[in-house]
Structures are given as C-alpha cells and as structure tokens.
C-alpha cells in the first residue's frame, strides 16, 4: 500500500510539473498563436535569480527564495513579451517561433558567457521541502505532496479565472477570434499580457519545485522540463488547456509506470519508451487527445 501511494504521488508530482509548464505553453499559444520555445528560459531565469539572491543577499531563511523566484519568472515572461514578442505579434507564426528561439539562445548564452555559469551552482531550498511526513503510516515526501497540491490549486484558480472574470473570458474568446474581442473595447495588450503573466506564474511555480529537486542551477536547466511539457502539450492537443493538463499528468503516469515495469537493464531508456507510447497515441489521434483537427486553421485575425 505504502508503495502504491508513493508511486501515485510520484506520478502526480512529476505530471503536475509537466502540466504547469504545458499549460503555460498552451495559454500563450491559444491566445496569440505563439509557440514559445523560450519557456524553459523562464525557469532558468527564476533559478538564477534565486541563486543570486542566495549569494548576494544571504537571506536568513531560504523561504524568501520561493516568492522571489516566482516573481522573477513572471517578470521574465512579461519582459519577453514586451521586448521580443510584441514587435512581431502581427507577423506570420514562423516569425514568432524564430523570435522565441532567438530569445532562448540569447538568455542561455547570457548565463554561460556573462554570468560564467558553466557548471551547476548549488542553491539551498528550505529544509522542510526535502523532509518527509508520515500520514497514516505512509511516508510521504513533503515536496511531492506540495507539488501535487499546488498544481491542483493552480488549476482550480485558473479555471475560476477563465470562467468568472472578464479578462479570463476575453482570453478564451481571443483564442478563437482576437479581432472581435477588440471590438468589445478590450485591449489586446492586456489580454496578451494576462496570458504571459499566467504562463510566467505557472513556470515560476514549476521552477521552485525543479530547484527544490535539483538543488542547483545551470544555464540549460529549463530545457529538459520544457521539452517534456511540449510533448505533454502535443499529446493533449496543442492549444487546448484541458489537453495540457491531461497530457502532463498522462506523461507523469507513463514515466512512473515505465520506471516500475522496465527491467533495471533497460531502465535508462525510460524516456524512449515514453516517447514511443506518445508517438503511438499521436498516430491514432494526430490532433492529440483534446485537440480539434481544425485548430490550426480556424483562428482568424
């Protein structure tokens, strides 16, 4: 029983992390048609900000690193939008994609050459994140429990925002038809800004968990989680918010399952098996689990 609960929590926490990142990608894509390849760099920036705070400010408690890391992620996402993506907003989708690649390369190389971070630098996280608690005789990692809980809360809050607020409704409407949203007098810049703030916030939450697990930063730390998030988003149907969450969780479950069933000798190929499975799903449903076939063609304006 102990083992099953731990594995379920394992899948929920990993899947939750992918879901947070995939949702950020999906929101930005659905609102403005941008495939944000620089999403991973938001995590990297959050990580390095926490590192810098630790080095230069030597906070008395590692607690402070968490909100600052999340704030840095939001600031990074908003800055990317303002500096890089806004000027090409009305350009063809390829231009946005290439711009995102450019941002990603610039940020990575900034940390490699300017900050000189060629090897991972250690960053402490609050002790309690690494501790274990015992519930009903089951040992549970605080980090995993928190990760699953925070993901769930973030999703519920996002759902409430998308259903109950004007900006949330406007974002959903803009995903289909931005021009008509503007005809309601709603400012396009605000809708896009909201999308990036949300995507930055979700990436910041993920970044804190990634940092807690790794305990170190390096310039390429955002690549692997965001690659998985892309896979999750495609699996769920790119641009679909439900799909992003389901895709993320499914990917988490698949990873944990393969970890369990694969013999030790080939356990190192876990990701290959996971991607094979994803490939098989996409052959059966090329539009992803929740994607609509015409999603890429029906966006206007």
């Amino acid at each position, binding site marked *: 029983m102990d083992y099953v609960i731990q594995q379920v929590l394992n899948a929920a926490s990993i899947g939750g992390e992918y879901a947070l990142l995939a949702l950020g990608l999906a929101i930005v894509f659905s609102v403005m048609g941008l495939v944000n390849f620089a999403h991973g760099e938001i995590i990297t920036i959050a990580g390095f900000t926490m590192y810098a705070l630790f080095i230069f400010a030597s906070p008395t408690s590692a607690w402070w690193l968490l909100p600052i890391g999340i704030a840095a992620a939001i600031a990074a996402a908003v800055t990317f939008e303002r500096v890089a993506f806004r000027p090409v907003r009305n350009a063809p989708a390829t231009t946005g994609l290439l711009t995102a690649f450019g941002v990603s390369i610039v940020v990575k190389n900034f940390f490699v050459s300017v900050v000189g971070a060629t090897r991972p630098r250690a960053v402490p996280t609050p002790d309690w994140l690494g501790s274990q608690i015992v519930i009903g005789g089951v040992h549970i990692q605080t980090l995993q429990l928190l990760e699953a809980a925070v993901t769930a809360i973030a999703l519920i809050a996002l759902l409430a925002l998308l259903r109950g607020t*004007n900006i949330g*409704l*406007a974002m*959903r*409407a803009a995903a*289909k*038809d931005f*021009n*008509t*949203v*503007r*005809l*309601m*007098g*709603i*400012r*396009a810049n605000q809708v896009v800004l909201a999308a990036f703030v949300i995507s930055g916030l979700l990436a910041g939450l993920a970044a804190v968990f990634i940092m807690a697990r790794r305990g170190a930063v390096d310039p390429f730390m955002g690549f692997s989680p965001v690659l998985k998030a892309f896979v999750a988003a495609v699996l769920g149907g790119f641009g679909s918010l439900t799909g992003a969450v389901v895709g993320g969780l499914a990917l988490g479950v698949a990873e944990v399952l393969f970890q369990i069933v694969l013999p030790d000798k080939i356990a190192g190929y876990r990701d290959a098996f996971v991607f094979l499975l994803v490939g098989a799903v996409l052959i059966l449903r090329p539009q992803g689990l929740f994607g609509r076939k015409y999603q890429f063609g029906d966006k206007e*304006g």
Partner: protein
Amino acid sequence: MLVVDRLSVAYGSIKAVREVSLRVEKGEIVALLGPNGAGKTSLISAIVGLVPSAGGKVELDGTDISRKRTEDIVRLGATVTPEGRKIFGDLTVGQNLRLGAAVRRDRDGIAADIEQMLTMFPILRERFASRAQTLSGGEQQQLAIARSMMSRPKLLMLDEPSLGLAPRLVEQIFGLITELRAKGLTLLVVEQNAYDALALADRAYIMNSGRLQFSGRSEDLLASDDLMEHYLGTGTGGHAGAPG
C-alpha cells in the same frame, strides 16, 4: 457623427478601397450597398481600425480616429457587429453579453442593460446559460447585435446583418434596427440585400470595385428603376445581390 474622407485600404498591392468619402449624421440610418467584394467590409474594418488604412482620414464626433486602435475607437462610441456574427461560441449567451460590456464599470447599469437586451430578444433570455455556438443563425445574429449594444455605442455599424437568415428573420432584424434608431442610435448598415436595406435607410452609398459609385437618398434610389438597375443590377421587384 462619422466623417470618412478619401479613405483607402490596400492588402499588399491589391487596393480594396479607393478614396471613399462618406458621412453619417447623428440619428441617421445609412445603408452601404454593393456586391460581394466591393470593399464594404474593408471600409468599415478600416473605420474601426481593424485593418490599417492606406490613406485618408476618419473623424468621429470631430475627433480624428484614423490612427487610433480598435479598442480605443470602441471606447469612443463606434463599434461594428461583424459579418458572420462572430459570437464567442465557447462562451454562454450571458458571458457574451458580459464581454460586450467589458469596458464599462457601472455594475448596475450593465445589469439593467442585460435585462433590457433580454426583453428585446426573448430568445436570449431562454438560452441565457447555453453555449452560444448552440444557437441558430438568427439567434446568433440577435446575440451579436445585443452584445454590440452592451458597450452603449453611439454609432453601430452592422456588417451584413441579414446574411444567411431566413426572410422572416431578416424582417425581424431590420425591424430591430428601426427600433434601435428610435432609441437614439446612429446606424451604418452594410448590406447586399439592397431592397430591404433601402426600405429602412434614410440615405445610401453604393460601392463597387473599391470605389464609391453613388450616394443619395434611399427613396430616390428606390423610385428609379434605372438607378437600381445601373448600380445594383436589379430592376423592379428583384432583390439585389444577396442569395435567398
């Protein structure tokens, strides 16, 4: 209220609108007629800033709005109910109306206006909590107009409000347009359905191939078979342009 001065619109090298000038006075219903592809939709899209103009000037109540953003023009009181209705299909009828009032902060006023729209369009009250994409074409058109009204515009530009509607519904929508004018609204109605539009408009402009071809009083147009035949390709009794 609206003064359009030699406005042009170009998509790449294709000129969709060539130096069109028109005026709409406060309280008027003005029809903008012409065949498919004449540049009517391009013209009103340029008026509200959804497509950039390639020259010319637009004034709303004396304010130059040629270089303003769509969202700011709407806040100044001019809006478009777009062709093909463009309702937000994933949102409910109620949410569509709420977004229509997104620029307003007067909660009580918004609630009162929603109530007024539901009285004007009883079907929307019935379908209030349904997703808008489940509405029929005529219901969607009513929702689109109601949604536009929620921002309390002074000038409403309706793009092909009769498109795809059964004759009975066209009559209903056109009756509504007269009702809106009685409430103090100024309307510019883009139509291919020339006869019905002329029956309701005070004045009309006719466009073809991006150019303004005719402007004058509706009754003069309707009274002259020659004019109707010449500009709209229709003589007595026929309905110009619009199929069905």
